[in-house]
């Protein structure tokens, strides 16, 4: 029996649309998980990935979409996100932590801190940031 639930969300890649998209994803995830701390961390990492697509994937004057594919794998206690765009992709994937006085450059560090695994996938013109997190058994609300 397949115990992986898959959900797809897609919108125009603007900052305001991206945050709304993340909230839709998190609304689904909230049905599975009850730990506020874990949900906040995942919300934060997903927001960073989606805002990154909104800001950097498409050149000025060029419009495109951002997509989130959410997989909830109850059997393996795993939550996985694939955040995709069809623009130029992300050139700088540096996930090191910048100095304390730096005013930018912490987005990928946050994703790397929250997730257990992060990878970058390119299929034709679709570029994805894929990250997953193992969820402790007691933190599940439901698993169908």
């Amino acid at each position, binding site marked *: 029996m397949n115990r992986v639930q898959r959900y797809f969300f897609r919108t125009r890649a603007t900052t305001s649309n991206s945050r709304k998209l993340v909230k839709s994803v998190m609304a689904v995830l909230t049905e599975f998980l009850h730990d506020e701390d874990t949900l906040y*961390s995942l919300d*934060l990492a997903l927001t960073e990935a989606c805002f990154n697509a909104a800001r950097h994937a498409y050149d000025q004057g060029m419009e495109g979409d951002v997509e989130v594919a959410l997989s909830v794998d109850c059997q393996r206690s795993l939550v996985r996100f694939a955040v995709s765009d069809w623009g130029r992709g992300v050139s700088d994937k540096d996930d090191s932590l910048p100095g304390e006085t730096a005013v*930018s450059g*912490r987005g990928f560090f946050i994703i790397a801190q*929250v997730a257990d695994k992060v990878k970058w996938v390119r299929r034709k013109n679709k570029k994805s940031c894929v990250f997953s997190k193992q969820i402790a058994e007691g933190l599940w609300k439901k698993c169908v």
Partner: protein
Amino acid sequence: MEKMRLEKQKNILFFSYSGELTLEVCNDLKQQLEPLFDEDNFSIFGADLAETTFLDSSGIGFLVSLNNRMKQAGKTMALVTPSQQVVKTLKLVLLLSYFKVVDSRAALESLS
């Protein structure tokens, strides 16, 4: 709904923000606060983040930028009663100890 407020008490300028402090709002906030850096009628800047429900990397950058600017202007900045969400994000990027944090508005006066 996001909301910014500014209040002046003696030599302290309070900035409070309710809602999500993210990329969506940071540029507007920076523009609104820009004229403050030239003012010399306060020496302490208190950022009351008790009602801030979400903080992303742009929000962090905004707070760091404010802190840098206040330091350059010879002023002191502190975070006042930051919410759990703000504390969690700042801990994640190892910046909680970088900021002065106080647990009440009254405690800001001791910084002067």
